[in-house]
């Protein structure tokens, strides 16, 4: 089914529905409307409490580090570009290009999450703002944490879609064992992502605290050896799983799945633009 028929697919009109809009796309739009209200309520909570700060509360300007957040905002925006490229690629039936774009989107998403882990750790340890010791901490961590969860779910979804793109076509000798391959592949990818996050965060903090770069790096290598090794094994596994194995069941007909995921991803980015403006930038006016 990955060969013929596909050429005539119109990605903007689905003749089987009353309106021509694919069901999945409509579902996603309606869900995003709902999600808008979720974030609306959370952002409102934060802003209301910023307008009525408790006496002696924390001053956000002394906590925030807008340089790092600007960088992660830029990265997240770029991930949206890669997501858009992935959608275009699969609409044209270019599976390979779609996979690379998905991987880059995942990569950028992970950088954003890494920055958030770093930022949260800094706020708690260096700036002494915890989720329970101040109203600002409560609203800030709950709001940005909820957004972080959305990004994490998005990364997981992207990862599973990437793995899904290797499902062998009917007739491919690999088709029989596709389920176990799929599970192992997905497990390896998620493990690789988590290990990378762990290793990079630990590298950053080691370098930050070490007197010189060399000392910090050798300390890092000796103490994180196991995790570095595991991460490398996981990456090797990913390369192995991605080797060419004949025809796959992933083509233009799956474009709507990638597109729905893309809608979600772009939405989460747009929400971040709002949060970045309302929570960070507004403090500097």
């Amino acid at each position: 089914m990955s060969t013929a028929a596909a050429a005539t697919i119109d990605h903007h009109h689905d003749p089987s529905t009353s309106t021509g809009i694919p069901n999945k796309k409509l579902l996603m739009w309606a869900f995003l409307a709902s999600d808008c209200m979720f974030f609306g309520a959370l952002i409102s909570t934060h802003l209301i409490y910023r307008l009525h700060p408790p006496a002696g509360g924390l001053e956000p300007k002394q906590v925030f580090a807008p340089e790092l957040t600007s960088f992660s905002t830029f990265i997240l925006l770029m991930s949206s570009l890669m997501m858009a490229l992935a959608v275009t690629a699969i609409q044209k039936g270019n599976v390979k290009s779609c996979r690379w774009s998905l991987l880059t989107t995942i990569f950028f998403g992970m950088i954003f999450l890494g920055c958030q882990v770093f930022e949260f750790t800094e706020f708690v340890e260096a700036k002494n703002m915890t989720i329970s010791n101040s109203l600002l901490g409560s609203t800030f961590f709950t709001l940005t944490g909820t957004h972080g969860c959305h990004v994490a779910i998005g990364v997981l979804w992207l990862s599973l879609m990437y793995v899904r793109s290797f499902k062998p076509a009917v007739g491919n000798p690999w088709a029989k064992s596709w389920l176990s391959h799929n599970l192992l592949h997905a497990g390896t990818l998620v493990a690789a992502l988590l290990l990378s996050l762990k290793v990079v965060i630990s590298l950053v903090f080691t370098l930050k605290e070490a007197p010189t770069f060399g000392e910090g790096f050798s300390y890092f290598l000796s103490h994180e050896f196991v995790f570095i090794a595991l991460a490398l094994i996981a990456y090797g596994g990913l390369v192995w799983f991605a080797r060419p194995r004949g025809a796959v069941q992933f083509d233009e007909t799956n474009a709507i799945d990638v597109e729905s995921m893309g809608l979600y991803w772009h939405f989460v980015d747009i929400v971040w633009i709002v949060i970045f403006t309302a929570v960070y930038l507004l403090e500097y006016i």
Partner: protein
Amino acid sequence: MDALAKPALLTKEEKAAAKPRLLAHPTAKTGLMSWLTTVDHKRIGFLYGFFALCFFLVGGFEALLIRTQLMVPNNNVLTAQQYNTMFTMHGTTMIFLAIMPMSAAFFNFIMPLQIGARDVAFPRLNAFSLWTFVAGAIILNIGWFLPTATHGAPDGGWFGYAPLTSRNFIPKHSIDYWVMGLQLLGVASIAASLNFIVTIINLRAPGMTMMRLPVFTWMTLVTSFLIVLSFPAITIALVELMMDRQFGTNFFEVSNGGMPILWQHLFWVFGHPEVYILILPAMGVISEILPTFSRKPLFGYPIVVFSGACIGFLGFGVWSHHMFTTGMGTVATAAFAMATMAIAVPTGVKIFNWIGTIWGGHIQLRTPMMFALGFVWMFMIGGLSGVMHSAAPADAQQQDSYFVIAHFHYVLIGGSLFALLAGIHYWFPLMFGRKVSEFWGKLSFWVIFVGFNVTFFPMHFLGLNGMPRRTFTYDSNMGWNTANFVSTMGAYVLGIGVFIYFAVMVYTYLKGERVGGDVWDGRTLEWSLPNPVPEYNYRVIPTVHARDAWWYEKHHQEEIKKEQSEHAKAEEAHGGIHMPFQSIWPLVTSLGVLIGAIGISALDSNPAPGIHIKLATTLIGGAVMFLGVYFWSLEGNEGYHIHLDENGNVVEGEHDHH
């Protein structure tokens, strides 16, 4: 329920599925597994209705206990603590576990039939909504069976005002059950509503334009939008309360700058649309029943639809009328008072349209019609006392008094419940192929009608005489004795009426008079179906030519017959009727949600090793949920095709790949 079970033929290739065992599609058409794996909107609707009625009886029993306690002054049938639990659970149960799922039952069963569809847009998501609703109901009620001192059923009132519900004031788990229970019910409602929105917008039969949709379907659409847009507000309020209770955040912690008024705003931004979520489906049911038994088309169809949508929009702009006494300031109070008065206009327009519908009609006073007429009258009384509340100075007197109790029971029982009871009578023949006896149906109506009014009308006077809501007893010298006694007697009569109603329903289900398809000589498409309704609903997808589609078909039989045989051939050429496979994964996903919610709500972090067990349970729940979703997506939305002969018998089934 043999009415809905229909064996489908599967070919050999399909049985010897060329797929991993784990992803083999369940095929049971009867027995427990067929219900646990069902994706048929009719079966899901039936299950929603079944659970809703069970919880309706539970909520009713709680109400009778409340009334028994208040029958005489200084009564001690219940302790103050038990009384708190009763009124909290009565309200929460009736709203979230009785009226809403009862409406959902009709959305599921009737709406796809009315638009000429073969199922909802996402059948498995529909099953997930059902099972998550059940999980939420379990969490909400689990406290009844656990020690009262540390757990207990929720006892903070149905709107759970923080910081009353914070750990400082209610340290036990009762509030955690309330928080997680409502959270799960919210997820279920939003998922179901997204499904209905896509179904109504995208799965309409050819010719079923938006302005030909039956009004019940229109109200399903408006209600679904209300749910999708208003539930997030309470979700976030509950998240904040949960964070306060579990992680010591300060959202409602006054000593660290938290503001209790925030909870009230977030809650009522949800809470007021919620009352329209409860009443709009009822208005839809009434708009179906009145024309059928008046033998006339609905009077002013576009106006009725527009008014419904208008109520939906305005419903988002009136929430602060629940908070007139909080000191919001003159401008806000005036604005919300004006908006509240404005919402009476589209509501009044609907009442006049219903009167216009029965005006000059050839009225048949059958049981559904009795309940529907009762609805119009009783809802109007509730609406009038509602308009009284919109005047902020008057509301300041009525706030938190029995006058408010009287008001919202007139709109919720006299309104929502009467309409749902009417709907059960109306669609019972379609669902079960049997009809309730007119005598017993009308008897139950009159007993319920009398009992309801005797219970709640005196409460207007009690409220104006100063009796506050939520107090578990009162002194004999307050002048409230007679009215309370009368009200309690009324409640017993109402209880007897409800008992008669359901006893008759059970009897009819088992032994009632058998009837054919179009028992009321209806107008909308669901009545065109044979009885029992086949799993695939329509042998040929109908083509809609008029607003009252089935009425038109009945009066243009030759033309329709010709058209249908042509369309049957065309559908056959396209591969027959597509049916979705059953699936276990929605149930597994909901099970994961349930386990996770138990971890969050029922387990203590201290003393050790509490936190580890709590964390483990929650993570296991999350993992089960994740696996459920993952296999759900791996399984794919495949289906099979069936082919029918002219009499609707299955001649052949075949597998297909999507």
